[in-house]
């Protein structure tokens, strides 16, 4: 019913919520000994999502490991938290626009 763009947006929103889940886990485990930062390769996973594959969680690289074996960087997670929120915001606005356009078509152009 909604065209391909809406489908892509749905996958994008899904992937953003998967990433937000990982960011929330990382923040919750910021003081857990031995915990390693989890992430997804967004570009690759977005292409995989088009092929219907489930996202693959990886350990983030290039982070400093502290004495207790934990490598969560709160700065990095805060940035991702904000970035995910903004991306979600943009994508959901686009999605809303798609739905509104469809509504206009249903109503025969007489308002939304």
């Amino acid at each position: 019913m909604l065209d391909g763009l809406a489908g892509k947006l749905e996958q994008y929103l899904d992937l953003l919520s998967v990433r937000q889940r990982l960011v929330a886990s990382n923040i919750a485990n910021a003081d857990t000994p031995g915990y390693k930062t989890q992430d997804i390769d967004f570009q690759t996973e977005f292409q995989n999502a088009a092929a219907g594959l489930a996202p693959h969680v990886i350990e983030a690289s290039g982070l400093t490991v502290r004495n207790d074996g934990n490598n969560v960087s709160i700065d990095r997670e805060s940035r991702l938290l904000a970035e995910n929120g903004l991306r979600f915001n943009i994508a959901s606005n686009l999605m809303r626009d798609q739905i509104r356009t469809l509504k206009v078509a249903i109503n025969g152009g007489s308002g939304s």
Partner: protein
Amino acid sequence: MSLFSLLSVSASGMSAQRARAELLVENLANAETTRTPEGGPYRRKDAVFTTQPAESPFSSIFESQLARPDGVGVADVVVDNRDPERRYLPGHPDADKDGYVAFPRINPAEDMVDLMGATRSYGANVAAISSVKDMIQRSIDLLR
């Protein structure tokens, strides 16, 4: 897995940090305590965290579909087993025959710094909740 389950991940982080803050405050309050029910001076306590699946009221239904997100919980409360600090106070009712009193080995600076860490981590979890809440609200707005 849904956005709603993320709320319980951050909530687990908040409760774990609160539990840690409780222990740290307890340490500070008992920095001079020489009598405990177990006998001897108070001993410093600290929380050890572990990852654990976040609890969610609907999780059991979706559990089979996707792995539940990692929350955090208090795995253990470790008690400091170092020898107590001995101070020479012959007039003290808890003094031993040589006039020394065993006081808890607590460094207030250490506990205050840990307490600041716990507060900041708690704040980070709150920020995560409000961000996720915003995402949920955005999704609901799609229906309008």
